């Protein structure tokens, strides 16, 4: 079929291919259902962006996109591309402005039901303890630029060392919460300045902290290994590297725009600015990006600690009674050097995941020992009124998608449309009626982020499940939300 003027051929019910044409170096492949193509992709420039990404020097196998594909800067959101380390490039457009935006799922050992009536109070306390909203600041004392460099080097280990969590938390964070090749010296002064008072803040837009109840278990054995049971109270945190990460992306886009002409690249979109992975510019970007990623892990670690504090305050419990612990922390905006199977040979490549979650299979060396037999948990947040999912990585993901899966629902309505649809409605009351308490800065945020502004995340998750890339393990239902 033709989508936005681009030929899209069916491989299976869940996988479609864009044949190589013009200057594309590899074909494009999109994991998506026919319904989703007809309802969403048809009117979205995102498919053209899958084609654009296929132009990147050194790209391997396919320019990939996950079912939550939608338009982004340079790469589409939901885009995955691996590039050769010697002949390939790295592009900030394949990571995004919010470097290491990600999701952290922490569980309590508590049942939701007996605590149901205290959820509104819990949400109130969380809103008080975790700064949210536009330009949120001051969760912890403003750090000095020297301290910030330590955060950029140590990632979540900085928070743990400063009393915001335990060593076990790092074990259950992707990359143990710290990318070792981070280069704080490559982070420009403005980026450091932008982050100084933002450690432990949620920010605005689609970022949130949620209290959920485990509503359904799909894979009993895997759920048990993950530490999830039906009726359990859990906390989901979605945020990233805040102003610091945005500034790193912005600063390096400028550096790489200049590199593009130096290396003689001709790319169809300026937001795809890139440099050879091994070049000075490429290495500097990777070093600064990893530093920003470490900032984000530290940020989510501090927020998790503030969530624990809120739980203890509200339920009047000791830490041991709460049993609050990290299930996993996944990142969905990053570029990483990983080893993958390329044409039957193991090869190190630079995997860009932009709005895509790492989904490593059972037996992978880079996941916690506890998950060795199940594959890593893949956490997929939905909108604040419906549900989120926990999935598990598979061998098929390693073979087909460089160990990657989807990352969320994606917007369906613009913020402006959402505001129009919310006019005259009491959204807080509507959510309360569904058993969801909410705290946010004003009606506007709630209206812009209302459930119907988003696609149904179940459609996205089902494509990945049916394609065998990641398998559904559990479904979470929100009972409390704090928004920016």
């Amino acid at each position, binding site marked *: 079929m033709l989508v936005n003027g681009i030929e899209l051929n069916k491989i299976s019910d869940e996988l479609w291919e864009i044949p190589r044409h013009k200057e594309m170096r590899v074909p494009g492949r999109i994991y998506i259902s026919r319904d989703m193509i007809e309802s969403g992709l048809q009117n979205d420039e995102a498919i053209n962006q899958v084609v654009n990404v296929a132009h990147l020097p050194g790209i391997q196998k396919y320019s990939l996109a996950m079912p939550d594909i939608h*338009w982004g800067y340079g790469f589409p959101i939901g885009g995955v591309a691996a590039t050769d380390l010697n002949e390939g490039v790295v592009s900030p457009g394949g990571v995004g402005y919010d470097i290491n935006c990600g999701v952290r799922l922490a569980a309590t050992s508590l049942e939701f039901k007996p605590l149901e009536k205290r959820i509104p109070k819990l949400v109130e306390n969380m809103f008080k303890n975790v700064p949210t909203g536009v*330009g949120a600041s001051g969760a912890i004392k403003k750090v000095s630029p020297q301290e910030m460099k330590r955060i950029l080097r140590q990632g979540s280990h900085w928070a743990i060392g400063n009393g915001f969590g335990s060593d076990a938390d790092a074990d259950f964070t992707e990359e143990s919460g710290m990318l070792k090749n981070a280069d704080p010296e490559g982070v420009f002064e403005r980026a450091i300045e932008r982050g100084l008072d933002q450690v432990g803040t949620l920010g*605005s837009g689609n970022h949130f902290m949620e209290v959920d109840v485990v509503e359904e278990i799909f894979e009993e054995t895997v759920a048990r290994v993950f530490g999830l049971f039906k009726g359990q109270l859990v906390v989901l945190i979605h945020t990233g590297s805040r102003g610091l990460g945005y500034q790193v*992306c*912005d600063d390096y886009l400028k550096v790489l725009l200049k590199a593009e002409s130096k290396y003689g690249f001709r790319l169809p979109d300026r937001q795809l600015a890139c440099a050879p992975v091994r070049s000075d510019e490429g290495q500097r970007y990777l070093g600064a990006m990893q530093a920003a990623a470490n900032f984000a892990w530290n940020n989510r670690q501090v927020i998790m600690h503030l969530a624990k504090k809120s739980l203890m305050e509200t339920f009047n419990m000791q830490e041991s009674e709460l049993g609050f612990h990290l299930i996993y922390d996944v990142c969905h905006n990053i570029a990483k050097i990983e080893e993958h199977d390329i044409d039957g040979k193991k090869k190190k490549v630079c995997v860009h995941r932009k709005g895509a979650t790492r989904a490593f299979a059972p037996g992978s060396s880079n996941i916690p020992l506890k998950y060795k037999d199940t594959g890593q948990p893949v956490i997929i947040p939905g909108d604040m009124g419906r549900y989120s999912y926990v999935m598990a990585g598979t061998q098929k993901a390693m073979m087909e998608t460089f160990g990657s899966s989807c990352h969320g629902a994606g917007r369906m309505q*613009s913020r402006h449309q959402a505001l129009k649809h919310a006019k005259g409605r009491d959204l807080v009351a509507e959510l309360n009626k569904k058993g969801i308490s909410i705290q946010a800065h004003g009606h506007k945020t709630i209206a812009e982020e209302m459930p119907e502004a988003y696609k149904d995340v179940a459609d996205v998750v089902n494509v990945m499940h049916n394609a065998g890339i990641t398998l559904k393990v559990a479904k979470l239902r929100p009972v409390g939300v704090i928004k920016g």
Partner: protein
Amino acid sequence: MDNYLKYRFLEHTADIAVEVRGETLEELFGNSAQAWLETVLGGDFIPYINDVKDVTLRELSSEELLVGFLSELNYLLFVHRWIPARISGLTIEKDNDELFLIARLEGEEFSVERHSLKEEIKAVTFHNMNIVQKGNEFVTRIVFDI
């Protein structure tokens, strides 16, 4: 020129897009700054000017210069908590291969008691940005990542 002709916001699913016009390149930059201000502080913001700051920038293209200029305003607001509310004396000159911008910004300190932020702009992007001269005016689109 009223605000509608200077700039108009366009429908965009995830972010904020605006189309800006100006009779000169300088006016296009000034109107872009106004569109930025309306995005972050709302259309009903009334400034209380009590301070000035000077900005100079040097870039290879007018698009890079515009992104750089708006990024500067964003930085002043979100990092220094200073509102660049008005622009006076903005000039853009060609200097060999480069474009050189000098601007005087008039503004005030951001105060939580008196002001409220409407949006946090993560970045001013290059997406769809192409400054063109149509007849006797300059036109461009700007997309703010929020």
